[in-house]
């Protein structure tokens, strides 16, 4: 979140905070389904049942709203991933994490991709602040994966000399790419295959 955004948010009354949250949640949902480019502020006004003046009271334009959507989406995903990965310390646990990702994505037949990945694809080229925030979020998510791999390494499931940070980044790449392939195929099978094979390659490290 930018300094200006967080400062504005701290000055809100409880009612103002609820209105702001309603706008951000509606915008996040629209941008997830339709994409950032295809979502207008009028769409957000209609979906959140607020007035245009209320929206502009909280956000001075679309860029500011998109940054708030990134913050909210990032917060939601990091909570989910912290809960899912926080205690994983085995390959079996990693597979259960994979199962949950696939199950969630299968609910929409993979149609919309990763909420954070989709935002990254759309906005990172033209909003430096958004790109910085997204980079930090992906770094945080990758660090959760690295922590899992460190636990696997401590347990002997991964060799001591394995490059944990690179492996975690590679696994994140497989996940994000899997989301994209699922989105293009409207089918979660390629995402499942991608993550399965990445985990299998991790398992193979101990066999070498």
């Amino acid at each position: 979140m930018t300094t200006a955004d967080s400062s504005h948010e701290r000055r809100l009354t409880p009612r103002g905070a609820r209105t702001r949250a309603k706008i951000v949640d509606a915008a996040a949902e629209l941008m997830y389904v339709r994409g950032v480019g295809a979502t207008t502020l009028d769409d957000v006004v209609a979906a959140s049942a607020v007035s245009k003046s209320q929206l502009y009271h909280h956000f001075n334009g679309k860029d500011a709203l998109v940054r708030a959507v990134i913050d909210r989406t990032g917060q939601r995903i990091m909570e989910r991933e912290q809960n899912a990965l926080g205690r994983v310390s085995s390959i079996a646990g990693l597979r259960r994490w994979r199962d949950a990702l696939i199950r969630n994505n299968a609910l929409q037949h993979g149609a919309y991709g990763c909420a954070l990945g989709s935002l990254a694809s759309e906005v990172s080229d033209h909003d430096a602040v958004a790109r910085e925030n997204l980079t930090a979020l992906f770094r945080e998510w990758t660090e959760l994966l690295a922590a899992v791999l460190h636990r696997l390494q401590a347990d002997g499931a991964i060799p001591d000399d394995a490059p944990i940070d690179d492996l975690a980044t590679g696994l994140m790449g497989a996940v994000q790419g899997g989301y994209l392939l699922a989105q293009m195929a409207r089918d979660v099978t390629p995402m499942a295959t991608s993550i399965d094979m990445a985990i299998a390659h991790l398992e193979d490290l101990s066999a070498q």
Partner: protein
Amino acid sequence: MLAREDALLSTAHDAGALKTWRTHLVAEVTDPRSPYASALRQVCDSASCTRSGFLEHWTDLIAKALERVLSQHVCDERSSAKRRPARRRIDADRTAVLVLAAVHGGAVLSRLSRDGGPIDAALDLALAPFLTD
């Protein structure tokens, strides 16, 4: 872009050729002016069926190259005096899907961080069984 991939992958028969292809791929994907970068940047739209066909073709090219490298590796192991521990049979088709995912996902992360590291790491993991002894 597929023509270039076809030219490179159809002549890949060993780990060395695969490494060359991988190096070429990373250079193309991380160059914003490259047709590869442009192709990967296309968002999912109403042309998803066309895009799906493009991805199937690319996956097929990669899978066939991996299969050739695997066959060459099996021949090398049979003629080698060294004894190596038995390895899990690698599925070239499923690995090709991971490779394609690594390209796409790695490209998003590299573009985001303005750093070629993520796509390098993603492809290293995807191609690990083929590029290590």
